[in-house]
């Protein structure tokens, strides 16, 4: 490994990215526009459905049988009581029913909780009140939008670009020099990582100016999640680019990877209550782990110990994809 050769390849790629104003502008502006759009669309904090968590099973659940038949209410069976109470606290669910102990939790400041509570009056359940402030949809969606932007930038900025280099002969020209495949690939990874970090920091700051969103966790931890998440996504791009010679094929494959990842990684909506198959599939996608970790840090103020699993998984994804990608890489 020659640092001089690595730095030369890194600088060339950085210049190429920074001077391509159209792509750079798109990378910076698109996520801000998306977040602003969502902030505007969901400025009232209203969602279509009422959400009620159902904790525990009981013979007595027939007692609230009629309530459970209420239309336009999404009843979600839940396992972890403590976590769900927190969700009531943050307005993420409107009411939590403990079927076994005939009690419910509601947020005293939530209008939706108030309405649901009125429907429960005839059943004479014990009321447990919480009064945390609301987490808006925009607070919830921001980690997802930033994650999605990172995913597209990593996949297309590495995968597509290397395939284009291969097709137009840039790789062939570089191969005829002492630059090794390892040096070249490291430079591509490092360049894209630097760009993603810089762009994400700018987008984060810009979005925060427009929509004052919730961030109660550690910035250093969020930064670590950003770096590991970006690396795992770049390594997917590297894997795609290892051998493909046609830009059209690369484009198709990258879309095939990025769209399901965007839809199944909980970027736009929570996967809680979705089919177990979908939830398991989501666990196989690096974006899920990055968005989950970023979300709990930003919204719930989670610490390092709370996101160790996600960080380790992202690290494993990176290690695995980079190993296969560089082993199978071909200049031509």
């Amino acid at each position: 490994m020659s640092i001089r050769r690595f730095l030369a390849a890194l600088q060339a790629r950085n210049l190429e990215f920074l001077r391509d104003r159209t792509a750079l502008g798109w990378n910076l502006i698109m996520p801000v526009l998306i977040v602003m759009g969502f902030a505007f669309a969901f400025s009232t904090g209203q969602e279509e459905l009422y959400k009620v968590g159902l904790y525990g099973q009981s013979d007595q659940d027939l007692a609230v049988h009629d309530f459970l038949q209420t239309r336009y209410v999404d009843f979600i069976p839940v396992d972890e009581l403590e976590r769900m109470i927190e969700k009531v606290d943050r307005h993420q669910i409107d009411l939590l029913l403990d079927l076994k102990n005939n009690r419910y939790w509601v947020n005293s400041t939530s209008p939706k909780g108030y309405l649901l509570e009125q429907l429960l009056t005839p059943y004479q359940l014990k009321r447990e009140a919480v009064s945390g402030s609301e987490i808006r949809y925009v607070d919830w969606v921001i980690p997802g939008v930033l994650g999605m932007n990172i995913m597209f930038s990593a996949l297309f900025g590495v995968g597509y670009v290397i395939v284009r280099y291969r097709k137009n002969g840039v790789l062939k020209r570089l191969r005829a020099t002492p630059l090794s495949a390892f040096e070249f690939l490291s430079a591509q990874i490092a360049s894209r990582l630097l760009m993603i970090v810089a762009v994400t920091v700018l987008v984060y700051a810009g979005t925060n100016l427009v929509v004052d969103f919730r961030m109660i966790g550690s910035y250093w931890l969020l930064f670590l999640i950003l770096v590991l998440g970006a690396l795992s996504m770049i390594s997917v791009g590297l894997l795609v680019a290892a051998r493909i010679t046609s830009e059209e094929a690369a484009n198709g494959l990258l879309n095939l990877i990025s769209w399901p990842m965007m839809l199944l990684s909980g970027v736009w909506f929570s996967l809680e209550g979705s089919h177990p198959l979908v939830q398991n599939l989501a666990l196989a996608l690096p974006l899920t782990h990055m968005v989950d970790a970023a979300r709990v840090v930003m919204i719930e103020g989670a610490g390092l110990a709370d996101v160790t699993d996600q960080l380790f998984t992202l690290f494993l994804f990176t290690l695995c994809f980079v190993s296969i990608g560089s082993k199978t890489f071909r200049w031509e």
Partner: protein
Amino acid sequence: MIEAENLCKYYAGVKAVDGVSFAIPRGVCFGLLGPNGAGKTTTVEMLEGIKTPSSGIIRYKGEPLGQRFRNEAGIMFQHTALQEFIRVDEVLKMFQQFYSHTRPIEELVEVCALEEFLTRDTRKLSGGQKQRLLLAIALINDPQVVFLDEPTTGLDPQSRRNLWHQVRRIKAENKTLVLTTHYMEEAFELCDEIIIMDHGVIIAQGNPKELLANHFDNSVITLPLSALPADFRADEASTLHPQDGQMEILSRDVDATIHYLAAQHIPLKQLQVRSPTLEDLFLELTGHHLRT
């Protein structure tokens, strides 16, 4: 300097190169000639270490191709691109960083005449300017062997002449040159030794002038077909090769043949006489034209 022994390259049942052997001595300009699809680019890409031979051996200074070769070789590819949004001077600096031993950039700018577009984006170069930049990149490591793969294809006559001039300067520095081309006059102008390839094999090998002397003891007289009667026959000193509306008469005795034509009352206004070229040699060896 470079030896190739029984090189073969197969693609899905097609023999692109089929058992080619030759040696390139130090300091010569070595030409690989042949029509498109003859196997010359595949052969040269195996020599450059870009393609792996299906079988056969390549040695550079007696060793298999490796890091030493990559440090000491300069390559100008036929089809290649450079990273976008980067200026000419930045490209040169990047390639300079890849090598431990390099030539000063100012020197290359002068040798390859890059001064007028040194700060221009590589996407905005003309064909001739891009070829000069690619030549400069090929020379940046002060190479001992320089590969030029069809360097003048697609260039206008003036750019071609300019490039020939630059190649002669490289030759004057006593570097070994390996040149592929399908322009016979280019090979004749620049090469000390050539191999002519067709269908993946070598059909002739040697010094261009000696090859012509060995294969031809005649000159070529050309007349339009329309100037000749339908039952025209050659004299004893010549043979006829009609092509593209022209009649090429290969004559061992030009004076006698022209007297014969005059005696036949054939109008000689458009008559041309020239020495045989490598193009004629190719036709003689294969029965078909080089550029078809």
